[in-house]
């Protein structure tokens, strides 16, 4: 009997030893951070040598820089030349003579047109003039004087993605008031581009985060990649979830770019129907299953849901085929789909007890 117990003790010790050993045998993680697209880009690569991971990360960052310069909505390059998007916008403003554009930009615009129409115009990258009027086309923006007449006239111009005609590598706009701002599309496009590149390079495990939009490849060692979701009002995570291979996550929030005026918050997400920043919602998070455009959808799909009135949010999600989403309203109450709730672990004690949380069914 005593022998048997000694063995038990030995087994317990062995288990402890194995556990300790395992924690030292984690696959190497290479982590790099950089500032592109006016935000933080964070790339983690697991299971590659440090040298290879650094080369891959740098390649991705160079691609991002290039895309950023190509699509910048208001800056010119070092020689004072506008971006490819800037040139297109000037041409649109001057009339409807077609101008040449790259195949890459043509594909992006066609995709954005389809998504805009699918969202019934709530995702509308053609409202650059409105965004600019609200002062968000600056690195350092400030509270503006609200010019109701000007906003009304910018809305009345009805700039829409459907005004743009793309044919044989050229484009023109039937509405001179169209000004493209791909701020709600480019980061998602960049995620897909980087994920595609890494898979091509046979990288099996990586995590890419562009300003909070994230796509996962493989796992982090023997565990899935774990993502924290930012609380819109506190500097902490409201919840965590595991992002499996190929999944992407994106959030639109009123706390990323905003200004305060008479103690009211004006965020950068503007309702194209009335021209005003949305004030009924703090954050919308969407989770996108594996798909060759998961990144784009993680960036785009949160916008129409954010902009739609609280009662219309489920329909806005359904139009884009989104089943996993979470809304945090102006009073910090949570509405979450059952599919999303299943994947989420609350970090916040109140939410864990399901206070201020309403679960909805989307099927």
């Amino acid at each position, binding site marked *: 009997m005593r022998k048997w117990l000694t063995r038990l*003790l030995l087994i*317990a010790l062995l288990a402890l030893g194995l556990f300790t050993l395992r924690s030292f045998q984690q696959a190497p993680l290479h982590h790099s951070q950089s500032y592109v697209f006016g935000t933080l880009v964070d790339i983690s690569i697991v299971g590659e040598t440090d040298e290879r991971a650094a080369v891959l990360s740098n390649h991705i960052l160079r691609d991002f820089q290039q895309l950023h310069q190509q699509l910048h909505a208001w800056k010119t390059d070092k020689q004072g030349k506008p971006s490819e998007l800037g040139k297109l916008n000037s041409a649109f403003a001057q009339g409807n003579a077609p101008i040449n554009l790259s195949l890459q930009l043509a594909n992006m615009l066609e995709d954005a047109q389809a998504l805009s129409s699918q969202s019934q115009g709530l995702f509308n990258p053609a409202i650059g003039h409105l965004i600019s009027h609200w002062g968000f086309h600056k690195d*350092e*923006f400030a509270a503006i004087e609200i010019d109701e007449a000007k906003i009304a006239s910018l809305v009345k111009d009805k700039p829409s993605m459907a005004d743009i005609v793309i044919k044989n590598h050229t484009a023109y706009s039937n509405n001179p008031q169209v000004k493209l701002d791909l701020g709600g599309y480019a980061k998602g496009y960049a995620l897909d581009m980087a994920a595609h590149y890494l898979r091509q390079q046979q990288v099996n495990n990586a995590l890419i985060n562009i300003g909070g939009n994230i796509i996962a490849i493989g796992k982090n060692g023997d565990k899935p990649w*774990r993502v924290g979701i930012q609380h819109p009002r506190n500097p902490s995570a409201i919840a965590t979830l595991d992002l499996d291979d190929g999944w992407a996550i994106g959030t639109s929030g009123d706390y*990323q770019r905003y200004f305060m005026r008479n103690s009211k918050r004006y965020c950068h997400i503007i309702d194209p129907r009335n021209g005003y920043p949305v004030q009924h919602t703090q954050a919308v998070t969407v989770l996108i299953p594996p798909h060759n455009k998961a990144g784009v959808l993680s960036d785009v799909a949160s916008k129409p849901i954010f902009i739609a009135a609280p009662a219309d949010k489920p329909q806005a999600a359904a139009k884009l085929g989104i089943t996993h989403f979470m809304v945090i309203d102006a009073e910090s109450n949570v509405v979450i789909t059952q599919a999303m709730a299943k994947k989420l672990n609350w970090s916040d004690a109140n939410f864990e007890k399901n206070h201020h949380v309403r679960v909805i069914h989307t099927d």
Partner: protein
Amino acid sequence: MFASFTQIKNSITHLRIGDWLVIAISSVLVVYLFQHLWSHEHAAKVQIRVGDKVHATYDLNLARHVQVTGALGEAVIHIAHGKARFAKSPCHNQYCVHQGWLNHSGQAAICLPNQISLELIGEKKPYDTLNY
């Protein structure tokens, strides 16, 4: 006062089944509790990054004021009693300063215009990256 080696040897040989059981169960319990309760919550260090480089990593329990020069200019970071915060920043909107004190592992404050970030690091990361 002190038990001699023979005495210890004797007492071990005289341990009964119950004693062994207590030893075995308590060892397993200690290992289990250590794994699960060893405080992961409170962070131990703060990592300051400037642009794409790690600028420095500081112990959170040693109070200090750190001056860091970012893309716009000099920011001041306060560290004290297991917490860290942006105290001063040359950026326009001051989001980073308004974030206030960070004290849990995994929390981060990022100043995009000045390209400086703070990240609290603990025994264990509660998540690999942050969605915002």
